[in-house]
């Protein structure tokens, strides 16, 4: 489909030879050839498929040797940013600082979930305080500050845990606040008895109702 231009021969430069194509192993020859060094290194090689649904990709498992000059590049695990893309002016970038980082909060035993905007808080203390207000019947064990507020009626404590980007469930409070905000996908307030696995080895205080 790509026509050969007459100029390439006229100028005496053979461009086809130097044309690079990029291909992942097993992928059929994609008409989009690799463009520039720099670009190919910085962008996730998702180019053969769509951003979201990969299912309909027309991969016919073509012979890799079909590619002219195949550069098998290992796709980076996380998508990297491209300079100046998307084309949004810098003043607009600076203006939109707050979009909010809302995460779901589930509490064992509560009939519905809540959502909190992690960007509204500057510390674990503030966050846990807010969560306590949201789920007023529960008390939340705060390992970081060695706080254990016992609720006289219920007498049970909740351990705050979160799911991180890798899908693992972690105890809230181990990493610096900003790192936590970045990696937290959802929160869960686990009932004391279920949270045995998350309890630290040497808890600051061992209350009688949990552990």
């Amino acid at each position: 489909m790509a026509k050969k231009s007459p100029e390439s021969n006229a100028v005496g430069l053979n461009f086809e030879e130097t044309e690079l194509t990029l291909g992942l192993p097993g992928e059929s020859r994609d008409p989009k050839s690799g463009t520039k060094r720099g670009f190919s290194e910085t962008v996730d090689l998702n180019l053969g498929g769509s951003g979201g649904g990969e299912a309909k990709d027309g991969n016919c498992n073509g012979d890799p040797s079909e590619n002219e000059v195949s550069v098998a590049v290992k796709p980076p695990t996380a998508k990297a940013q491209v300079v100046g893309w998307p084309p949004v002016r810098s003043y607009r970038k600076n203006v939109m600082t707050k979009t909010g980082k809302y995460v779901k909060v589930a509490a064992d035993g509560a009939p519905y979930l809540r959502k909190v905007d992690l960007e509204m808080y500057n510390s674990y203390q503030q966050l846990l305080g807010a969560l306590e207000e949201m789920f007023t019947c529960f008390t939340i064990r705060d390992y970081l500050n060695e706080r254990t507020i016992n609720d006289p009626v219920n007498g049970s404590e909740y351990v705050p845990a979160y799911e991180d980007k890798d899908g693992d469930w972690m105890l809230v409070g181990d990493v610096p606040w900003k790192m936590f905000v970045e990696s937290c996908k959802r929160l869960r307030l686990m009932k004391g008895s279920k949270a045995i696995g998350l309890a630290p080895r040497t808890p600051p205080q061992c209350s009688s109702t949990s552990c």
Partner: protein
Amino acid sequence: MDPKRSRNSHESVNSSESTRFPDEVLERVLSLLTSHKDRSSVSLVCKDWYNAERWTRTHVFIGNCYSVSPEIVVGRFPAIRSVTLKGKPRFSDFNLVPENWGADIHQWLVVFAEKYPFLEELRLKRMTVTDESLEFLATSFSYFKAISLMSCDGFSTDGLAAIATHCKNLTELDIQENDMEDNGGGWLSCFPENFTSLEVLNFASQQGDVSFDALEKLVDRCKSLRVLKVDKYVKLEQLHRLLVRAPQLTDLGTGNFQQELTPRQCAELESAFSNCKNLHTLSGLWDATSLYFPVLYSACGRLTFLNLSYAALQSGDLAKLLPHCPNLRRLWVLDTVEDEGLEAIGSSCPLLEELRVFPAAPFDLDINRGVTESGFIAVSRGCPRLHYVLYFCRQMTNAAVATIVQNCPDFTHFRLCIMNPGQRDYLTGEPMDEAFGAVVKTCTKLQRLAISGLLTDLTFEYIGKYAKNLETLSVAFAGSSDWGMQCVLRGCPKLRKLEIRDSPFGNAALLSGLAKYESMRSLWMSACNVTMNACKLLAREKPRLNVEVMKDDETDSQVDKVYVYRTIAGPRRDAPPFVLTL
């Protein structure tokens, strides 16, 4: 007051040819022409008309500051009162042009100060403007009235202070979307007590507090003020105080729209808005939520342009507001409104002509929120007069675009940005060629096009074949080979600006436009496959083009960035070391 001029250049009015139009009449007629394109045509008719035109021109528009020199401009047009200048290539907005590239206004001002002492207006876009230059401007032109800076850099609020201090006849101070350093809001106090002529004041892009007291007094005494755009540090209750002093405003940019107000304050604000009978444009609205929208309702019926691109509204918020705005022609929103919000637009704004949907979190790669093709379709169904769109999205289909342009065949500006580079039609897995094919086939009036998604040469074949009115084309991560770019260069007779990044176009493509570049304003190619040899050849063959190359690596023959533009001023003398003019 006309400058003195000699009549030597004119042929004698007393010539026996009674059919000749007397110069005075010709000049009188020509002075009524305002469009610079018309004037350009007039000047080409004959020498008499060229002269008559140049004497009567009061406004000059220079689309590329390096296409001509200040000396040439003042030499040709002696009576200029108003200058519009554009500098850096558009991709500089996205950090593709290094700092200190050029487009500094200062040398222009020095020449103007000598030849245009009566200069009144200066409008700059993508130029470097220092505080020293602003001070020089303010002190060199006693009749100066209007300054507009869009997407400029190099200055701070100190420069604004100089303008406020010295320009006694200022009517317009319009600072839009700039990289302006903030040295405090005291510059507003620099307007003298007896200064009352201001009509336009826009400091929305300021990043800090202003002296509100000074602002309030200024608004109070400038009874002709019709455009007021404040920055986001002005609070709601302060806005109220401004509005009651300026009910004549036609164009308002609010400050922060989120503040705890008492019911009484709310009522007062609502009353202030309803008294603004001439208000047709509303912007600002930082951090706005639907909570205080009701104060706007009385004014919304008159609005023709609403800029909500600083307010992260949800679909429900927009759905509440828009039914009050049936007369909107132009609407800018963030993609936080999602498809549902766009559906509200389709059902509430039948007169809509322009829609821009900006991404709230463009650099957040994990997000899947935002708008999709269905929102766009919804708007196209409800707004048949739509002719300008800028749309940032994360997914699109060929079928959707085909439907959209069928509903709205009058597009003049179609700028679609699918944010993941090289992304396919997410339903069929095909490239997005047919989408843009549909656009150029259906929209015969198309002047400006920006393409995105996975695109092969077929897209460019379509563009070259059908887009006969296309003037500006923006290309990124697209195309398969030189053939694509060649199609466009051969097929689009009205092409003026072509900007390309990260696409596989090489020397053959570049050189195929040899005959065309002089009819264009400029060509930009970055991260393509162009080498030094081809650029040198182009420069050699076309001496009236400036071929400027920016290279990262000294030794490599690969060219990172090349900027080609026509000029009558020769190679520029202020090129920084990283720019090679071939």
